[in-house]
């Protein structure tokens, strides 16, 4: 057993890595819970692994790697020969997977995480949501989703007609938006976005993640 993942099943970023592991049929790893409430992620032992003091971080033998999207890429490469191919098979497919991974990272994620902060993470720390910020971010989100709708009307998945890490990387935060922030109308009101969401969120890998959360 060479892989240890530090994080929590409830965390969106850790969930990205866990779902990638499941998608690649990797079951043989250890999930070490990091107690955020006790500030474990800011203690010296943890900072030696992840100097920015956030979760997750993965150890594989003597290699330590952080940033969930980078870890997900590592897992996809390392287990190339098993499970779902996640990074594309040709030069062009790979490029399109990378493009949509960046779209998630640069366009989708900042907006959704801002809404999540206002409506979910902030309130957990006793902060009141700033309704103006939520409204502004939702407006931005609508414009982004219009582009996704048009794209998914012509493509079954983001990078083409194959599921990839680009689709997977959207799952944890979108799930949070729908089920915890309760701001999913943008997703559910668009025919092709909704069909895409239903498909990707019903994959066995995501179901396994949700089961793990339920047990935690």
């Amino acid at each position, binding site marked *: 057993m060479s892989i240890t993942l530090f994080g929590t099943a409830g965390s969106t970023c850790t969930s990205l890595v866990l779902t990638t592991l499941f998608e690649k049929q990797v079951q043989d790893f250890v999930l070490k819970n990091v107690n955020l409430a006790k500030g474990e992620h800011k203690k010296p032992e943890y900072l030696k692994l992840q100097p920015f003091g956030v979760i997750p971080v993965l150890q594989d033998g003597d290699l330590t790697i952080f940033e969930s999207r*980078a870890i997900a890429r590592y897992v996809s490469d390392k287990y190339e020969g098993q499970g779902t191919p996640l990074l594309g098979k040709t030069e062009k497919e790979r490029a399109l997977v*990378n493009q949509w991974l*960046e*779209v998630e990272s640069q366009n989708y994620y900042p907006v959704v995480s801002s809404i999540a902060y206002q409506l979910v993470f902030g309130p957990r720390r006793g902060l009141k949501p700033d309704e103006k910020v939520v409204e502004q971010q939702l407006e931005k989100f609508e414009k982004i989703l219009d582009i996704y709708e048009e794209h998914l009307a012509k493509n079954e998945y983001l990078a083409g007609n194959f599921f990839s890490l680009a689709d997977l990387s959207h799952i944890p935060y979108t799930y949070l938006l729908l089920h915890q922030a309760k701001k999913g109308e943008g997703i559910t009101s668009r025919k092709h976005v909704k069909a895409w969401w239903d498909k990707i969120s019903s994959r066995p890998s995501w179901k396994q993640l949700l089961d793990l959360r339920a047990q935690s």
Partner: protein
Amino acid sequence: MASLKVYGKTYSTNVTRVLTTLAEKNVDDYQMVPIDLLTGANKTPEYLKLQPFGQIPAFQDGDFTLYESRAIARYISDKYEGQGTALSGNTEREKALVNQWLEVESQNYNPCAGKIVFECVFAQILAGRPTDEAVVKEQLEKLEKILDVYEARLTHHKYLAGDFFSLADLAHIPVTNNLINVAKKGELFSSRKHLNAWWEDISSRPSWQKVLQIIQAGQQQK
């Protein structure tokens, strides 16, 4: 006619990230197609067909269109694997560390540094308002902490992913140039010995010097 096209303008750090990658891979044979945000050229139906988010750059290789500067940089790095500087790491481990620091740039460094540069340099021109000093202060505090982590890393490694220059270092160059030379926040770097040495090293690479010339030439055209 060059089959490679880069759409955008050289005032964009996302565009110059791509140009620096091309230079690092010894790829000269490409065409720059001006798309000026200030004239709304990025909102025309023709451009939106290439880049539906209306952002620059967009990139074409023949009839293959790609956008997002870091994805374009990865594509160039892969396509021209056999020439120029190896940018993506040679082993599985090296690749992982390149990807890790690319994400740090993308998720931590760029948002912070970008906001500071925007407030100090572009707020008036692009948003018609003065610098928001509160935002600058907040982002500088964040960036100081981030750069402390960089300093610690670069104390033990010449470059971010290890002892080899990679796309992870390259990705930082355009925004850092703006931060130090245009927004005049050089103290952030000069006060950190190893970070400063790293910056001196990567910004003196021929690829970046070439892009600086392209930027200057672009500024002279009206």
